């Protein structure tokens, strides 16, 4: 069994950009972005571990020195495999109106840094993501900018997402809902 994903932390400086582990993590994130753009969520779900924690806290504006910038005890997403699975299953029905017709999505992933952990089968990857979401022909497109910290776990079939924390850069989201994944 693997180490407790919730306890694993980055160790040491960012891996060099030529490091094989960094290259693999970066490629994983880019491949994932294409899946999310295409809303191929059943494929995406297969890339997350059974013990995944997928967290997107609610950001708040606080005074410098307040010591926190997320709403205590509240998130936009606070998911496990079950709830992610229900969300994905819903998109597979013919009645998830909010994405029928689907949005045009583009996940721009950049600023990728990879870190080793104490466990050779786990890497921490930081990235920035900018999601462009366009619906219909009347509304302004929505933008969501966020930083992500991921924990990737090595499996026999390649890397899997074991933990993701999404720090969105808005306190008040300017999109009609989060019927997307970041």
């Amino acid at each position, binding site marked *: 069994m693997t180490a407790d994903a919730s306890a694993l932390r980055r160790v040491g400086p960012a891996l060099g950009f030529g490091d094989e582990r960094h290259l693999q993590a970066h490629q994983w994130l880019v491949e994932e972005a294409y899946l999310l753009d295409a809303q191929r969520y059943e494929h995406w779900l297969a890339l997350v571990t059974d013990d995944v924690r997928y967290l997107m806290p609610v950001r708040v504006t606080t005074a410098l020195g307040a010591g926190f910038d997320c709403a205590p005890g509240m998130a936009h997403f606070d998911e496990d495999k079950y709830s992610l699975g229900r969300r994905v299953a819903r998109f597979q029905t013919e009645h998830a109106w909010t994405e029928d017709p689907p949005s045009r999505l583009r996940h721009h992933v950049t600023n990728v840094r990879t870190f080793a952990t104490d466990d050779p089968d786990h890497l921490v990857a930081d990235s920035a993501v900018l999601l462009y979401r366009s619906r219909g022909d009347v509304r302004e497109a929505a933008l969501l900018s966020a930083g992500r910290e991921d924990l990737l776990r090595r499996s026999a079939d390649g890397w899997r997402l074991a933990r993701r924390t999404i720090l969105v850069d808005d306190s*008040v989201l300017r999109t*009609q809902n989060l019927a997307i994944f970041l």
Partner: protein
Amino acid sequence: MTDLDTVLSDVRRGMIPAHIYNDEEIFRLERERLFGRAWIFVGHESEVPQPGDYVVRRVLEDSFIIVRGEDGQVRALFNMCLHRGMQVCRAEMGNASHFRCPYHGWSYRNDGRLAGLPFHADAYGGEAGFPRKGQALLPAPALDTCNGLIFVSLAPDSPPLADYLGDFRFYLDYYTRQSAGGIELRGPQRWRIKANWKIGAENFAGDMYHTPQTHTSVVEIGLFREPKAAKRKDGTTYWAGNGGGTTYKLPPGDLEERLRYVGYPEPMIESMKSCWSAEQRDVIGRDGFMISAASVFPNLSLVHNWPKVGDSDRVLPFVSIRTWQPVAPDETEVLSWFAVDAQAPEEFKSLSYKGYLMCFGSTGMFEQDDVENWVSLTSTAAGSMARRLLLNSRMGLLGDGTPVSPVLASAEFAGPGEARVGYGEYNQRHLLSRWADYLERPLSGKEVRA
């Protein structure tokens, strides 16, 4: 704009001029005549438990610091420095003994009183030039609470909140007084939707009819124990005082069995039994109705539901409170809180929170489809064709105004107000009739000066 009297009389007969959902002139009247007068929900006492704790909330453009003073009292202070009008608090939550204006450094105690200003003697000649005594951040003209819910009104002569809410308080207890400890709020999630604020309020007040269509998908994925969303029609809508809502019909059983059926654990059932009146217990235990969504006029909504929160048949209830805060005729900021009984077991709190996230709020699988509809409606309501269309909101009425389903007798529904079984737009009409009552009344000279 079309003649206001015509608009209001159409609304009152349940034929809604479509443009009221995206109209600058209507919005201007709403700002002045409705949001300038009504009680508006801004937060809950549990959000500011300690002296100095504050959150910043708006009533339309007006920013208020909701803060607990050193004396323990919760106040709503207009967030504008008395000197040059800067916001004295630019964070949205935190703890502070004082608020200091960043512009010239005037500072205020957390009860609003002016504590000091730089160079008072040199610049103003001291107390002789500018007496500090009695200077304070403007308080909200009226502030009142019910079950810890904090409301403000911009009208100083507002009726007491209890009178304003009226018999809706009976139903409010189901959401916000499940034990003597009351509720605690987490959040809010905040996001902006390009939809008119009234649509959400109407939907939560009484739209059971949309559930089988809009929310088909959440039933299909097995999020609920009931296999058919059409079950909705067996529930009731009720309107009481200044709010109304919807209920589900539960399977046979007594109070304890029915509370257990929706997933409440034994200690919470005991608390509810001791907190609620005989009539409040009877609505569930005798009549078999469990509260679902509701709205308090004008823009506060509540919801209670009981999804499966894990991969088993176990269901668990959650409560959410939200406001539809108007930004523009075609834009609303939603503030959506998770609420839970403060004395609930910790395991219940964490699972209930999970249920909330899956169903409502920025990521909620119900809410996602609702908002898609409301955005679409709002954008279409802006044009000239929408001025020629009266939306039929007369469900539940025959042509001559006779209701399709009768008001339940007190032996069938123990709660106050008017309750009816099945689909109908009674509550939406109640809500918009109140809206019309406010909009038709111009500000008096006294109100203008206030």
